């Protein structure tokens, strides 16, 4: 909408130094509170004046949420760890390169310098109808403009849609799903752990939220088990521009190949659906098979079996299929 608002409306600002304090503030403010991590998504909403929190809880000073730590059975990354830190961390580079690849593909150096891993995971969709302030389902309205027969939807979803056809924009999510990561969520009633693929909220359940985080909850850390350390990884993001762009399609995979056979595999895609998808059907096709281009094609076909293209995103079907195929082939071209 052309009513250009700009200029951030006033809010109260808090800079707690612990996660508990942050949560307490968030509970206090409920729907009117806003978590500020790196801010790379937040500022857009504020400046457009589409979302107007009463109180902003800036996590910049919560040191406990920052940094990469080795744990007994893997590695834990604080939610406020910047994408640059993730992308350049020696142990992650050595053993979990699918994640560092993903983090390095986010936007631009400046955004990776401020943007956090949790922010990349929890960011809102880039559907331009929704972002434009249209009163769609996701904005609390009663329609999806992007799925209309006349709509401009080349960047929208081909799978898993339910009224809303927006896609998750996260680059790191598919890598974390491939790594079988768990997300630590802290709330008033303590901590809970969810699998990476369960962190994202499908529109069929709650069309207004991107993640399962409730007001008053905080994603505090990401735990990566050592299960996939040093596995055969693949990550590819196809985007229109090589910097500052969102994926048209991303595929990430982790494979254990021994004896010429794929013993175990986890594969995920983003840009295909409203949530990052774990490609379990493709995994089933691959498990126990010797990797080959033919097998890759098969796995790709399975991945897009249920795809329902909109007016302008049919190309995502071959794109997704081809990326799955490439993941099996293990070469990015």
């Amino acid at each position: 909408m052309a009513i250009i608002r700009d200029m951030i409306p006033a809010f109260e600002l808090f800079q707690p130094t612990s996660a508990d304090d942050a949560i307490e503030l968030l509970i206090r403010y409920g729907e009117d509170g806003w978590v500020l991590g790196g801010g790379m998504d937040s500022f857009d909403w504020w400046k457009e004046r589409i979302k107007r929190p009463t109180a902003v809880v800036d996590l910049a000073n919560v040191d406990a949420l920052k940094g990469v730590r080795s744990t007994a059975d893997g590695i834990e990354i604080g939610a406020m760890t910047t994408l640059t830190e993730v992308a350049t961390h020696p142990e992650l580079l050595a053993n979990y390169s699918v994640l560092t690849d993903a983090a390095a593909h986010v936007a631009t150096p400046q955004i990776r310098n401020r943007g956090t891993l949790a922010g990349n995971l929890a960011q809102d969709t880039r559907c331009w109808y929704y972002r434009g302030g249209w009163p769609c389902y996701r904005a609390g309205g009663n329609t999806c403009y992007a799925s209309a027969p006349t709509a401009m939807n080349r960047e929208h979803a081909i799978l898993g849609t339910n009224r809303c056809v927006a896609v998750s924009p996260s680059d790191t999510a598919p890598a974390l799903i491939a790594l079988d990561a768990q997300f630590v969520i802290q709330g008033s009633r303590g901590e809970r752990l969810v699998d990476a693929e369960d962190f994202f909220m499908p529109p069929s359940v709650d069309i207004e939220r991107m993640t399962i985080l409730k007001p008053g909850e905080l994603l505090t850390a990401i735990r990566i088990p050592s299960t996939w350390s040093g596995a055969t990884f693949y990550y590819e993001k196809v985007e229109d521009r090589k910097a500052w762009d969102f994926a048209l399609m991303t595929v990430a995979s982790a494979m254990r190949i021994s004896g010429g056979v794929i013993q175990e595999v986890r594969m995920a895609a983003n840009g295909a659906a409203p949530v990052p998808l774990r490609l379990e059907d493709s995994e089933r096709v691959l498990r126990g098979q010797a990797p080959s281009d033919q097998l890759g094609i098969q796995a790709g076909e399975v991945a897009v079996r249920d795809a329902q293209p909109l007016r302008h995103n049919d190309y995502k079907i071959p794109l997704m299929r081809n990326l799955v195929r490439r993941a099996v082939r293990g070469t990015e071209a």
Partner: protein
Amino acid sequence: MELWRRAANPWGQEVLIGVSWDLMWAAVIGGLAFVAAHAVWAKWIAPAESTSTGGSSLAGLPAQILRHAMSERVFHWGMSAAMLVLLVTGFAPVMGIQFAWVTIHWVAGVILTLMIVYHIIHATFWQDLWAMWVDKADIKAGVAELRHMVGRNGTEVPKAAKYPIDHKLFHHAAAVSGLAAIVTGVLMMLRLETAFWTANPYMFADSSWGVVYVVHGVSSVALIALVISHIYFAIRPDKWWITKSMIYGFIDQEKYVQNFDPNRWAVGGAAPQEELVPAGVGASIPEDGGADAGGSEPAGDSGDDQQASEFGGQV
């Protein structure tokens, strides 16, 4: 409390997008308040129920009188299930219980729609549509009932036809709400991508869609209140005999003579399966359980249903 939800359309014009969910809570609270008030009234204030047989004789009446035929009962409970599923899937997410509700909701909606269509056709062509009509006698009875309820002495409440006035009104309220919800619901389905059509939000103008959503919301909210009161009456011990009739089909002879005017709901002295309908009385009028769509008091009639006999002996 807000009544409506509004939003700015892509051109910045304000449009209705639905009812405020405050209304849902209002309906819940309203429904429960009515229930509570009635319960209080029934326990402490209500005048004693007349158990008079009103001069009617039990003679010639079967011990069990068929009130709801098998098909009606199946219809009623099927429809009730669909309705409950619709209400739960529609409102639970609003109340914060989240699950993938949309598919269940629209499938239940389609089932309900088909049942109602069946009911309308059935009631129109095979049953006496007018059994549910509120006539002068009903109004008189209603007035008397009200006077009785407020404790006016000496008021004799006339006995009812097969469907008493309160049942009829309930049916109509539920029918209106239910039909409105169904018609708007079917329109709303056009906005869903299904195997049969492509979603198209532009079939109507924004403002028209707003009306559709508001009507769906208002009728659904109304149904919350109606269903609450309906369930309440259904489980009240003093009404249990009616509820049972919706399960088993029959009422006791005794209840019949205590509550119904044989002139208005004539039951022959013969076996229930022969259930006589005196000509011109317009009594045994098959009406539908369609009323139940809205969760009305058990309605429906035995009408032409001869299957009732199958159960006659068992009850």
